[in-house]
């Protein structure tokens, strides 16, 4: 009973802290702008099954992608064991899911095997970060904090897996000395226990209990560390993929408020129609965190800073300042500062800083070729180019700020109907003296 009470209290604290953090993060969503209506559920489920559960985009880098996929699939299995632990902890039952029979055997066996596979993968990930120079993990946006965060998260996962394996060994040991029957099958545990001959039943019992508590407390700690970490993607990736933009990558979202204005300009009749209700004009494009859409912000929370986007960015590859990963991380960092200020003082609050310039420079924005390599590469369907173009929209339409050559291009389009300074009269010159051979 004491065990149950202690467990219930820890669980309550875990949920309490977790919901406090999440509520804070969620409350910032109300400052963001609309993106797109969420419909096409069939399509969304398909995308989620292939991109999230099938890990199809992470396999764009097949070798390291495989290790990530194994970790992901491992988590999907191991979570059943974790749920069981919570039920056992609360009710005092012992391996309650064994009522599932053969399914339970499969779950436990694959969980046991996956624990080892995940542990090995995590060791590979950690050594890549600690002992090898991987270009993708570097960059101006990768501060010391980002590296520490990555290493803490990975170490936590490693400890989770080690404690799970210890738990299974402990359990097997107790049962073996007792009556030999076990609930569930534990192939890796069975193998590892041979290295521990002659341990007494008490010792195994002790290992089991200690590992059990260790594992569940690590889960509680991990869950509450995540929202403050880039590894928040453990929670956010699957919903982020479900909420993916379903349009072709080449499509930019239309600005309907501009359409209204342009139609007024082109059709003088509508100018005398009923005047629009007096609403304060909305800022064109994105200058600060609250101008971004809820999807942009969701993207930023789901980003795990893997750097696949930046590693394929033509601008970044050739030494320009732009890094798509930085753009997403900057939005998250800015909202972390501006969000609480807006909660306190309202959405219009101005702290004399902004996402544009204080975080993301014009030089970065103008280096983008909108080639969509970043968005194509992102394993969880983050879309960087639409945010970059939205920030260009702010620069051009609110500040009339753009590189001189682009302003000249705008003028040419306006005056000659072409981005270059040629006359419409010359549009058919290409067709002069065109001949076809007669065969």
């Amino acid at each position: 009973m004491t065990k149950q009470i202690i467990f219930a209290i820890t669980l309550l604290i875990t949920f309490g802290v977790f919901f406090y953090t999440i509520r804070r993060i969620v409350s910032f969503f109300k400052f963001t702008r609309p993106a797109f209506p969420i419909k096409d559920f069939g399509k969304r489920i398909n995308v989620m099954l292939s991109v999230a559960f099938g890990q199809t985009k992470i396999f764009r880098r097949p070798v390291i992608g495989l290790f990530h996929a194994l970790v992901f699939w491992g988590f999907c299995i191991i979570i059943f064991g974790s749920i069981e632990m919570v039920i056992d902890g609360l009710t005092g039952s012992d391996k309650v899911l064994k009522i599932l029979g053969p399914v339970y055997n499969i779950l436990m066996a694959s969980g046991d095997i996956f624990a080892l596979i995940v542990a090995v993968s995590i060791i590979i990930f950690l050594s890549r970060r600690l002992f090898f120079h991987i270009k993708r993990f570097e960059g101006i946006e990768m501060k010391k904090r980002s590296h520490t965060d990555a290493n803490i998260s990975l170490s936590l996962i490693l400890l989770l897996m080690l404690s799970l394996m210890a738990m299974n060994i402990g359990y097997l040991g107790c049962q073996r000395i007792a009556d030999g029957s076990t609930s569930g099958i534990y192939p890796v545990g069975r193998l590892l226990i041979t290295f521990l001959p002659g341990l007494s039943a008490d010792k195994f019992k002790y290992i089991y209990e200690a590992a059990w508590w260790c594992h569940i407390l690590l889960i509680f700690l991990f869950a509450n560390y995540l929202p403050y970490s880039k590894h928040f993607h453990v929670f956010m990736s699957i919903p982020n993929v479900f909420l993916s933009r379903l349009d072709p990558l080449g499509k930019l979202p239309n600005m309907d408020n501009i359409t209204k204005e342009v139609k007024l300009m082109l059709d003088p009749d509508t100018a005398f129609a009923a005047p629009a209700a007096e609403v304060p004009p909305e800022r064109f494009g994105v200058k600060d965190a609250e101008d971004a859409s809820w999807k942009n912000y969701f993207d930023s929370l789901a980003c795990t800073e893997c750097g696949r986007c930046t590693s394929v960015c033509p601008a970044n590859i050739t030494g320009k300042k732009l890094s798509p990963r930085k753009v997403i991380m900057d939005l998250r960092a800015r909202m972390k500062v501006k969000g609480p200020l807006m909660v306190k003082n309202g959405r219009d609050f101005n702290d004399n800083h902004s996402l544009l310039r204080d975080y993301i420079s014009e030089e970065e924005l103008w280096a983008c070729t909108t080639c969509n390599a970043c968005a194509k590469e992102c394993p969880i369907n983050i879309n960087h180019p639409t945010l970059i173009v939205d920030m260009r929209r702010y620069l051009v339409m609110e500040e009339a700020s753009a590189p001189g050559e682009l302003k000249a291009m705008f003028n040419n389009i306006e005056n000659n109907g072409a981005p270059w300074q040629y006359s419409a009269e010359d549009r058919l010159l290409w067709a002069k003296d065109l001949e076809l051979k007669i065969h």
Partner: protein
Amino acid sequence: METRKIEIPLMADLFAKGEKPEYLFWVGCAGAFDDRYKKVVRAFAKILTHLKISFAVLGKEEICNGDPARRAGNEMLYQMQALQVIEIFKMYEIKKILTICPHCFNIFKNEYPDLGGNYVVVNYLQFLNSHIEDGSLKIDSASLDNISVTYHDPCYLGRANDIYDEPRNILRKITGNLVEMNRNKSYSLCCGAGGAQMFKEAEKGEKEVYMERTEDALKTGAKIIATACPFCMTMLTDGLKYKNKELEIRNLDIAELIAQSIDL
């Protein structure tokens, strides 16, 4: 060999006669004004004539559809252009649009519908490929004598619209020696001109994007770099010039390769 003169039909002329062509052939600003790309448009127009396709161009009535303005953030200018273009299309009751330029293709296909402009938009590679597949366009497969060709995927055909197979199908009909760059299809590297970069100097960096991409192409050892976009054409041709390879290695558009191979 005998030749006959081709008159490119104008939408306004046909309309005055009460005729409605099946396709509007959207030439695009690069096709109209860029001396190098005019040759590509000429090649494609010859193919259209050869196939006896019912088409017309807007000629002097064509205006920029607003793509570079939009990518550079000038949504206002884009929409002004777009709504004017949509009016012109409405006037001529245009239903099907053929484009060469991938940027024009993308904007008509994906972005004009938001402004009420709904058309069947066909890129010339899809068009050519379907005519090769149905046998109406016969290609002399020995025409290139197995010269090695590599294909550079334009971002706005590839990643933006998932057109990867059509150009490769076509090129395999022309040569038995199609070689891929390391970065190809959805992994393809941009030429550096997208997103209105075509109209400005690049930001400060260590290297030009088009040099990086030209090096990708050179590594394949291909004698011909096939492209399918006016901006990619400019960038890669520049790359070849900087590498002093413009005499050894040719940068040709797929339309030109087809026109050559059927000797139009």
